[in-house]
């Protein structure tokens, strides 16, 4: 994956070593990262580059230095965890709904909002899509697990 990045893992790690955090946070590399773990696996110095990409994405998002299209990765992950917190298991329809709405409020892209809409009937035809998703029975314990792990912070 590194081949398609403007700043690949080696360049990002070097920037961080040199204390150029701002420059690293504004790079595009970590937004192109797909968490495939290849860089961490092949690094001769055992640097967990993929883990560092996770951290860079979070920091960059929190400091508001990301463009709306890039924020989608983080917004998707947040919508994903919110969904698990509520249901215990992933409800795909709800996830897509929440993700599309939050990205729309930030980027106002109608084409992105409506993209994938044609997929729903195709999935339904194949019995791969359920309007009512599964839920865990003991959702209260899931909520408590989230509370303890989030330690007062918000998604």
């Amino acid at each position, binding site marked *: 994956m590194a081949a398609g990045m403007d700043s690949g893992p080696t360049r990002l790690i070097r920037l961080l070593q040199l204390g150029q955090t701002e420059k690293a946070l504004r790079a595009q590399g970590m937004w192109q990262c797909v968490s495939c773990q290849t860089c961490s696996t092949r690094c001769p110095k055992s640097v967990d580059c993929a883990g560092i990409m996770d951290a860079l994405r979070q920091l960059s998002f929190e400091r508001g230095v990301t463009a709306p299209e890039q924020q989608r990765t983080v917004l998707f992950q947040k919508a994903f*965890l919110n969904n698990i917190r509520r249901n215990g298991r992933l409800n795909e329809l709800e996830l897509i709904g929440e993700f599309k709405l939050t990205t729309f409020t930030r980027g106002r892209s109608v084409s992105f909002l409506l993209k*994938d809409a044609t997929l729903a009937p195709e999935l339904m035809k194949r019995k791969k899509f359920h309007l009512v998703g599964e839920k865990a029975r003991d959702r209260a314990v899931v909520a408590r697990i989230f509370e303890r792990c989030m330690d007062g912070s918000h998604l």
Partner: protein
Amino acid sequence: MNLAYYPGCALHGSSNDYEQSLRACLGSLDIQLKEIDDWICCGATAAHSLNQKLAVALPARNLALAETKGFHELLAPCPMCSMQLLKARKELMESEALRRSVSEIVELEVRGETKVLNLIQLFESIGLDKLKAAVKVPLSSLNAACYYGCLLTRPPEVVEFDDFEQPRSMEKIVEVLGGKTVDWNYRTECCGAGMTMASEQTVLDLSHKILTNAKQHGANCLVVACPMCHVNLDMKQPNIEQHYGVKHAMPIYYLSDVVGLALGFKPEALGVDRHFVCAGRSTEELGIRG
């Protein structure tokens, strides 16, 4: 034999064709899957990206649920779930303090001893000889590109499975079924994984390269053991073809599909008719068996 089973969200959602095919072929190999009661999501990429504690606690609760039922082995056919479970298990095994604090967080005692198997490992533990003996319809026309993707073999210190650069375990299974496999270059490259919604272009680019390379090396299908790989290579294949103006028409089978076909199941019994690509065409027509 009874085996604890952690389906994960995908296999009970849009990848329910994967569950259909693995239940069918494992059933005929005398393995009954016992779903872990009230399992919860493993947290997937979202948890390990946003909250490290959740990335351990969510899988740990599932390991504890399996342990309280006395299971020592657990099948997790989704490599994302499997990797998350194994990562939590490794961390729990290494630290008693962590076991104590996580047990409190998840409200169950977690020992982290349950062995976690992916689907390839399960077939290996059944025994390739036994699998070979059960073959009713050898897949003599199959020329498969076995595709591992990322998380079956990475991170190697977590999953401890096969060779992370040159894996061969899936090829061995396909060959036992009477099929041929191709040597190709994209076996462990990423398909774009969970970026399908957030960054579709990434998925189209990566998956197009995978399909192109498989075809260049003479494959007549891809075999995968991951629900996300299947979504990106099968469901998104029409989008890839449209975007690049090419026709791949490459059927994508789950490993359990090809095992099931060799065991004599009809494609519909395995959910193959619910795939997006070449779903309506017979296996004979596609040159898979017979």
